[in-house]
C-alpha cells in the first residue's frame, strides 16, 4: 500500500467545483499552506475549482493561505467559528458586500459536528448556544432537567490537512498544537489529503504515537519545510 502522491498539483487535482472542503488548522497553526496554494494556482490557471464551501475555524489572515483562497473568490460559503484575525480584510470586505455566505458555529460545536460526521452520528445535543441567536430554529430537548440544542453532523467531500510525519499507509503524527482540527477533519471527509514534512516507511512511526490512523487518509504529499502563515504575513507575502 502506498498513498503517496507525487506532487501538490496531483494531490489537489480531484477537487471540483461546488465541493465542500474542510481545511485544517487554527489560525496559521496546522494550516496546510502549500496544499491551499496549490488549489489557488489551479484556479488561477483553469478557473476551477470554484463555488467551494470551506470549513475552517477562521476566515484567513492577510493575503496567504485561506485568505488568499477567499480573495480569489473561490469560496461561495464559509463555515467557521471566528472570522477575525490580525488582518481579516479579505473576508470582511466580501462578507459585507454580500459576496460570501457565512455560517457561524461555536467552536466546540464546530469540532463536535466534524467529529460526529466522521463517526457516523447524524445529530447530537449540546448545551452550547442554548438561548442564543445561534440556536435559532434548532430543535431543543430537555435531558435531566436541562435544555440542549440539537446540532447536525458536518461532512465534506475533501479535507486538506497538515501533519508532521506520515507513513505510506497514511498514519499521521502532528507537531505540537498544530493538530487542532486536523485529526477530526481527516475522519469527516470522503477524501483526505495530508501534507506532511516527511514520508516514512510503514513501521517507522510507533503505533503508540499515531494520532490519525491511516484508514482516514487517502492521499499523502511531502512538503519538507512547510511555510507558516504568521511568518509569511510578517514578511508581507501575498499569494499568488
Amino acid at each position, binding site marked *: 500500500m502506498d498513498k503517496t502522491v507525487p506532487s501538490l498539483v496531483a494531490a489537489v487535482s480531484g477537487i471540483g467545483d461546488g465541493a465542500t472542503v474542510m481545511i485544517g488548522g*487554527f*489560525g*496559521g*497553526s*496546522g494550516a496546510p499552506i502549500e496544499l491551499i496554494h496549490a488549489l489557488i494556482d489551479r484556479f488561477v490557471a483553469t478557473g476551477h475549482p470554484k463555488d467551494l464551501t470551506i470549513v475552517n*475555524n477562521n476566515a484567513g489572515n492577510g493575503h496567504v493561505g485561506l485568505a488568499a483562497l477567499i480573495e480569489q473568490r473561490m469560496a461561495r460559503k464559509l463555515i467557521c*467559528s*471566528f*472570522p*477575525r*484575525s*490580525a488582518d*481579516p480584510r479579505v*473576508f*470582511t470586505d466580501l*462578507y*459585507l458586500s454580500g459576496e460570501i455566505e*457565512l455560517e*457561524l*458555529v*461555536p*467552536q*466546540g*460545536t*464546530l*469540532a*463536535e459536528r*466534524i*467529529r460526529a460526521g466522521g463517526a457516523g452520528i447524524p445529530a447530537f445535543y*449540546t*448545551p*452550547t*448556544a*442554548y*438561548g*442564543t*441567536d*445561534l440556536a435559532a430554529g434548532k430543535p431543543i430537548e430537555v435531558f435531566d432537567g436541562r435544555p440542549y440544542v440539537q446540532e447536525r453532523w458536518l461532512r465534506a467531500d475533501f479535507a486538506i490537512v497538515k501533519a508532521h510525519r506520515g507513513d505510506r499507509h497514511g498514519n499521521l503524527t*502532528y*507537531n*505540537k*498544537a*498544530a*493538530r*487542532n*482540527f*486536523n*485529526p*477530526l477533519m481527516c475522519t469527516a471527509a470522503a477524501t483526505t489529503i495530508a501534507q506532511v514534512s516527511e514520508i516514512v516507511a510503514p513501521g517507522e512511526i510507533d503505533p503508540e504515537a499515531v*494520532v490519525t490512523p491511516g484508514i482516514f487518509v487517502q492521499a499523502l504529499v511531502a512538503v519538507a519545510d512547510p511555510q*507558516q*502563515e*504568521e*511568518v509569511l504575513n510578517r514578511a508581507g507575502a501575498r499569494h499568488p
Partner: protein
Amino acid sequence: MTTKLSNAQIAWRAAQDIDDGAYVNLGIGFPEMVAQYQPPGRQAVFHTENGILNFGEPPIAGEEDWDLINAGKKAVTLNPGAAFFHHADSFAMVRGGHLDVAILGAYQVAENGDLANWSIGAGGVPAVGGAMDLVHGAKRVAVITEHVTKTGAPKLVKRCTLPLTGVACVTRVYTSLAVIDIENGRFVLREKLPSLSLEELQALTGAEFLVPDTVADLVVPEF
C-alpha cells in the same frame, strides 16, 4: 483614595480565588492577565481551546514556534507536564465539566447570570469562537469587567439587551468596584471598594443587589 481598580488589579483579585492545581481557561485579551497574578505557591494549569494543557509564558521575541500558540493566536511556551490534544478532546474538557474555572470578559451580565460578551448586535462580521462553549461546563464561570461602560452605563443589568452568549451561566463577577456573586437569580454583594458607599455602588449597578450581613472591603495591591 482608590476610585476604581485598574484592569491589573481586577485580574489580581480574580487570581486570588484560583486554587493550586486548578484547571483554568482564560478568555482572550483582558482575562489573560489573571495568569500573571497567581499567589505565591499556587500554580494553576491553563487550558487553551486549540489543544494545550499547561502552557506557560510567551517566548522571547524571535524564538516563537507558530505551531505552539494559544487561542488568541499568540506564541506560548510549555510548562513541565503539558499535553497536546485535538479540538474535540479540548471541548470535551470544556463541555464535559472538567475545567474548574473559566474567566471571561463581558459586555453585560444580568442578575440571573446571563452573559453577553460576543456580539454588539447588528452590523460588522459576527464572531463567536469558543465563548458559547466555555460558559457551559466549567464548574465556575467568572467574569472580570469594568463596573460601567465607557459612557457610564451599567454593565451589571436586570436583563441583557445585547445578544446572549449563554443563559444563567455566570456565578461571580469581579468588577472595577466590587465582587458580586450571582445566587438564585440575584446579585449578591460580597466585596466593595471601601471608598464607595452602598448607595453609590447601587446607583452604578443596573439591578438591585442584595447586601448580606458582612460585605468585605475590596482591597488589592497598588501596581
